[in-house]
């Protein structure tokens, strides 16, 4: 597991700025009292008093009804129509099974936070290196254990140990640290790019580090004599990052046993999650990983006010990372108490490889990476508790229709004494005219989903449900007569129900 550093010369003065801003205690307490008073008022539905303080312009007589949710995801799960076809006959056949005894057991233990490495070792992939280099200047004995790769990534497994130098803070960080890995083949010299974080474990008893370095694939050099050089060690201590200058060389002939194939399966199936729509474009399978490549309504590049483009966190990514736990001992691990996104293969959970969370796909793509799967024919993508996307064995399209979306809204309305019904054509026209009168900012973030049934003599003017928070709000006048006048002024003969997308 890597430490999070972007140390700068300004770290200390910026930290000081936090404590150097001193807020008057009396003012702080006054604000607290004001907030608590507003909460009291809010509770007794006296919204007029409460809204006097809010900076946002509030509508009159708004009554917010908080709906307690038992299980958010169950209650607000969306209709899923899922059909995935996999036309695939795929099995991993290691070109050359490697005997495991040469590897340090640490690489197949829970101390390595990459399930792909562990699976590859256990299934006998990889080329044994079994080479030792002694860095005399720093008294570090380096043991190169094995190398394994597919077409997108190379894993170089090595351990290093010292009797004199404390290696606790020594990292071979080619992502954000000062370490690099260089490839030399004949006259070709290339600095290799990282793929994710890689994995690291420090054994304090033995003062020994095990690292699974993760960098771009070098499979194109199969059959050639190659030299890899690990250049410099990054030291992360409490205050800064520094460099130990050194070169750790490794020369070997790249055998085909180090290289595993990747199989790509086109999926092109749509699903929706928390109000966003996604498409699973394809699934890629290799000995080191399973990649699920997705595009969606919120995976597109975002352009900020300065024209700078960047990726934002989609709801699916948020869900994927929700089950991620950072553990000092074991790196990025799965928090089994939390909901997330998983694959299920042959009935067993296939965990995400969170150390590859930084890998970016093509423009507009989001990539979820999981441990390798044995039998892709019997695989399901599970998003939270509600969404299951099966990959059928025989390739037939299967549809699972879940009516939760509709029923959840109906349930919410029913809990508040409302029944919804669709608008007639005339009512739709009324609504069009009404919406045209309103400023755009009031109408762009919501959709009409129906009208309140049998509620003509009500003081309610409109009902809205927040898609994100599952909160139902009503806008109502102080009495029925007033509500009737407001409706007439608006040109509406009914009480609209909106779905708010924020």
């Amino acid at each position: 597991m890597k430490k999070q550093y972007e140390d700068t010369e300004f770290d200390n003065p910026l930290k000081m700025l936090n404590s150097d801003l001193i807020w008057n205690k009396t003012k702080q307490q006054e604000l607290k009292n004001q907030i608590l008073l507003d909460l009291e008022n809010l509770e007794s539905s006296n919204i007029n008093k409460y809204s006097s303080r809010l900076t946002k312009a509030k509508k009159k007589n708004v009554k917010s009804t908080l709906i307690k949710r038992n299980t958010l995801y169950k209650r607000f799960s969306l209709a899923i129509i899922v059909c995935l076809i996999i036309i695939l006959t795929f099995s991993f056949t290691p070109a050359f099974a490697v005997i495991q005894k040469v590897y340090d057991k640490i690489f197949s233990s829970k101390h390595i936070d990459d399930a792909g490495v562990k699976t590859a070792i256990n299934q006998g992939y990889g080329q044994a290196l079994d080479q030792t280099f002694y860095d005399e200047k720093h008294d570090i004995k380096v043991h190169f254990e094995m190398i394994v790769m597919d077409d997108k990534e190379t894993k170089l497994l090595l351990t290093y140990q010292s009797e004199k130098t404390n290696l606790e803070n020594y990292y071979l960080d080619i992502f954000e640290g000062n370490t690099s890995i260089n490839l030399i083949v004949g006259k070709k010299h290339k600095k290799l790019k990282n793929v994710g974080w890689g994995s690291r474990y420090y054994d304090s008893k033995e003062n020994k580090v095990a690292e699974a370095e993760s960098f771009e694939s070098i499979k194109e050099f199969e059959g050639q004599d190659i030299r890899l050089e690990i250049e410099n060690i990054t030291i992360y201590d409490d205050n800064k990052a520094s460099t130990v200058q050194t070169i750790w060389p490794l020369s070997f002939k790249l055998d085909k046993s180090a290289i595993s194939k990747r199989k790509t399966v086109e999926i092109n199936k749509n699903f929706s999650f928390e109000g966003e729509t996604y498409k699973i474009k394809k699934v890629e399978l290799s000995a080191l990983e399973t990649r699920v490549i997705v595009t969606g309504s919120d995976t597109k590049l975002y352009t900020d006010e300065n024209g700078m483009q960047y990726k934002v966190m989609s709801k699916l990514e948020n869900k994927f990372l929700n089950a991620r736990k950072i553990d000092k001992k074991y790196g990025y691990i799965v928090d089994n108490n939390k909901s997330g996104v998983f694959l299920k293969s042959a009935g067993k959970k296939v965990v995400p490889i969170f150390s590859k969370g930084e890998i970016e796909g093509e423009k507009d793509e989001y990539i979820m990476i999981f441990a390798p799967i044995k039998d892709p024919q019997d695989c399901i993508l599970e998003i939270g508790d509600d969404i299951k996307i099966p990959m059928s064995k025989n390739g037939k399209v299967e549809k699972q229709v879940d009516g939760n979306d509709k029923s959840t809204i109906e349930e919410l309305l029913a809990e508040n004494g409302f029944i919804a019904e669709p608008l007639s054509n005339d009512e739709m026209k009324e609504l069009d005219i009404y919406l045209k009168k309103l400023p755009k900012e009031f109408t762009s973030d919501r959709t009409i989903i129906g009208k309140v049934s049998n509620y003509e003599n009500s003081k309610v003017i409109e009902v809205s449900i927040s898609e994100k928070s599952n909160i139902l709000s009503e806008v109502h006048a102080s009495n029925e007569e007033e509500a009737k006048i407001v409706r007439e002024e608006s040109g509406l003969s009914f009480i609209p129900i909106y779905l708010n997308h924020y």
Partner: protein
Amino acid sequence: MLSEYRKEEIADWYDQHSKSILTFILLMVKDYQQAEDLTHDTFVKAYLYYDSFKNHSSEKTWLFSIAHNLTVDFLRKRKPSIFLREFFLSQKDNNLLPEDIIKIKENSYEFYKALGEIKDTYRKVIVLRKIKGFSIEDTAKILNWSESKVKSTLFRAIPVLKKQLIKEGFLNEEAIRRY
């Protein structure tokens, strides 16, 4: 009573995080009164949306994401072109703080001032990562950015801050060595 429990929790959260949230907002909007109002709204919103707090993150991260969203909304509304000229003309005054309510120690004033001059995107990532000390993961959650976006923006933001400090005459070679 559930609502009583919720209120107590909000009061606890206020005791623990209100100062940090107020100063975050203050650094973003550079106006004490607005910062106070937005801090108020943050805790009221936390109360209203309490049920949607899913413990996906700490309550501090959640409160900061509410504060951030409110601040972004506020800044967006404050930015119509009609006010643009006025905004730039009065920017220096906006940086002044009501001393009886909020004070800033002299050593840090230059950083407060320089931060106020750089663009919002850079300012917020510096404030969250370097001043508030949030992790990359939590900063990404608060800003709804990808983690790599947090890192790359911070990487670009620090030299911009440095340039601003030099421009304002707060930084010279000697000062760099001091830090």
